[in-house]
């Protein structure tokens, strides 16, 4: 997986099918989480992961911070939902795996073909932001400390940490590609 800029202005990369499934999976979970946030529910907004997605704008003035959140939370959440939806759309339907199995003479089940992901400039913007949101949520789950080290060390966290690092690689590759 490495994004490259095409002459047409799009950026593209070949994803392994397992990478597509992974990104689809975590992005769907993010969508669910974002969709469940009620911007008027103070207790929900106090959850650390949500708080990191919608941080205090006024660190020393809780009243002004609440007011700012009241005016911006809905729009920010809408943007994040729309970005994640855009990412999902670019990954194609979940059924693609089944569909490709129909002509399995070309693509044996044990060796699935890489999937081309082609992104326009607006799609890239959505991807960059959603990759950030995903990493912010996973960092909260891993209890990543200020030095960037996960505080959780169980087996499940190692898997999550691998995903977290992989999402960072995807994002960095995208940033370098659009800069090229």
């Amino acid at each position: 997986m490495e994004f490259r800029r095409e002459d047409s202005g799009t950026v593209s990369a070949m994803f392994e099918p397992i990478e597509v499934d992974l990104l689809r999976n975590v992005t769907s979970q993010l969508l669910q989480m974002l969709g469940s946030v009620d911007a008027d529910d103070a207790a929900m907004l106090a959850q650390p992961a949500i708080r990191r997605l919608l941080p205090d704008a006024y660190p020393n003035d809780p009243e002004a911070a609440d007011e700012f959140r009241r005016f911006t939370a809905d729009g920010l959440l809408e943007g994040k939902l729309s970005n994640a939806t855009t990412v999902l759309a670019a990954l194609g339907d979940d059924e693609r795996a089944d569909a490709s199995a129909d002509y399995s003479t070309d693509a044996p089940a044990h060796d699935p073909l890489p999937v081309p992901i082609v992104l326009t400039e607006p799609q890239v913007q959505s991807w960059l932001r959603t990759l950030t949101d995903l990493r912010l949520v996973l960092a909260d789950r891993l209890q990543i400390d200020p030095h960037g080290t996960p505080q959780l060390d169980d087996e499940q966290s190692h898997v999550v940490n691998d995903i977290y690092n992989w999402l960072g690689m995807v994002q960095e590759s995208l940033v370098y590609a659009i800069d090229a």
Partner: protein
Amino acid sequence: MPQIEKSTRVRESVSLDRPWVTVVWDDPVNLMSYVAYVFRSYFGVTPAEAERLMLQVHNNGRAIVATGDRESMERHVEAMHGYGLWATLDRAEE
């Protein structure tokens, strides 16, 4: 010369108000390359300036990335939150 008088009055009222600043804070999640990209693409600064601001965030824990009236700074902070950066606004120090 009413026009001159008008512009003088505007300048006075602006100077009475201490400006606001947009502050971006260091966080362990956002990649340095992404933070520099955000500064470049949103604030339209040169790559060198974006790199300087990013390193300031990284090394000092925070950087002032914009100064102006409160409304503009709120707009910047909201945009930074859209990018997933940890940003706040505050009165400029005297």
